[in-house]
């Protein structure tokens, strides 16, 4: 029996969220949970164990970088891979996200195969 992975997608745009969920549906045995913003993301993280987190940066209430910072102080998720997805494409933004603890950085507009490849790489899924 193959293992099941869990993923939390934190994105305020319903359109982008739907696209990410579609892309992630192409990864076998990956169960996806959606959150509207950083606070909703933290709420969903509490009491649940996720194998990977994908988050947007620019979001209302709590942005993605603050979420990354908070997740890294959470003993349960301090080592959980985080992929930051954003429209910002500069190296500075990338460095900032990585410095805060993000594992990877994908810029919009997203390419589904790129998202799939990155998630598989971080979850060490070979098929």
């Amino acid at each position, binding site marked *: 029996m193959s293992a099941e992975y869990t993923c939390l997608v934190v994105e305020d*745009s319903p*359109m*982008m969220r*739907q696209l990410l969920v579609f892309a992630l549906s*192409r990864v076998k045995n990956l169960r996806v949970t959606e959150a509207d913003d950083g606070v909703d993301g933290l709420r969903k993280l509490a009491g649940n164990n996720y194998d990977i987190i994908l988050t947007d940066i620019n979001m209302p209430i709590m942005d993605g970088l603050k979420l990354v910072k908070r997740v890294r102080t959470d003993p349960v998720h301090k080592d959980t891979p985080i992929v930051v997805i954003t*429209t910002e494409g500069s190296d500075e933004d990338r460095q900032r996200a990585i410095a805060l603890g993000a594992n990877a950085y994908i810029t*919009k507009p997203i390419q589904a*195969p790129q998202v799939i490849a990155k998630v598989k790489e971080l979850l060490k899924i070979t098929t």
Partner: protein
Amino acid sequence: MMDKKAKGRRSDRPPVDLAAQLKLQRDSFVSTFFKKGAEFTEELVAENDRLRGAMADLERENASLRTQLASDEAIRDLLRKIEELEREKQALLSHVHEAEAYSTQFTSRHAQVEEELANLANLHVASYHLHSTMRLPLVVRHLRELLQQLVGARAYAIYVADDARGELVAIAAEGRDVVQLTAIPYGAGETHDDAQAAVERAFVTGIAHVEEGPIHDDRVSPAACLPMTIDDRAVGVIAIYALLPQKGAFVAVDFELFKMLGRHAGSALVGAELFAAADGRIPGVGVFQGLSTSNFPKSAPAA
């Protein structure tokens, strides 16, 4: 008479010394005969031994030659086997190469299918959200998200036609101050700058203009002008001036998105506006009752 006869007759008997001599000769002959016989026998035995030895040598040589022959046959068998194995190896290698080529082809095809699927998902998600609401602000928000997040537009404007004034008016913009985007008169032959002329041309002709190849930031005229139509009548234009830095050019799926926007964005905006003007009232059922399949416009006959 008898004595006379006896006297006249010569005796046939050899003298005694002659007999001895003959006996001696006979003995000598017999002795020589046996001696020669013994010698001859010895020679025969020796010859026989020699021949036996030669025969043994020949048998050994023969055996050796047979062994060598058998060995040569074994080598020939091995060579034949090697040739067969070589042929099998070549056949297997050929199969492996075929399988590899098939696998590469399959992988490439799989990637193409995945890409097509992702593109279709983009189109589905975009049109789904565009028509998911009749609230004008939400339609505009979805249109903006679509342009920013799916197309990767950094600067753009959405113009809607004001038929009463004969102008295209910017209702939303990003990367440009919407207030400073002056209305663009259309169809009156007024002179415009390059950017406005491109927008007006797309509106009047109903033909989209999309720049192929790299899009540079310093360009003045829009990289894409997309007329929004309802039943082939243009109701507005989407103008894209600049793309996000990480996106240097429009890609295949953008062209599909533009086609979808051309057909759907106008009806979504106008529908939402009409819905708002009607205070969100749904038309009475009477509006629909007069419709039946017989009233639908007939499709053109096949050529």
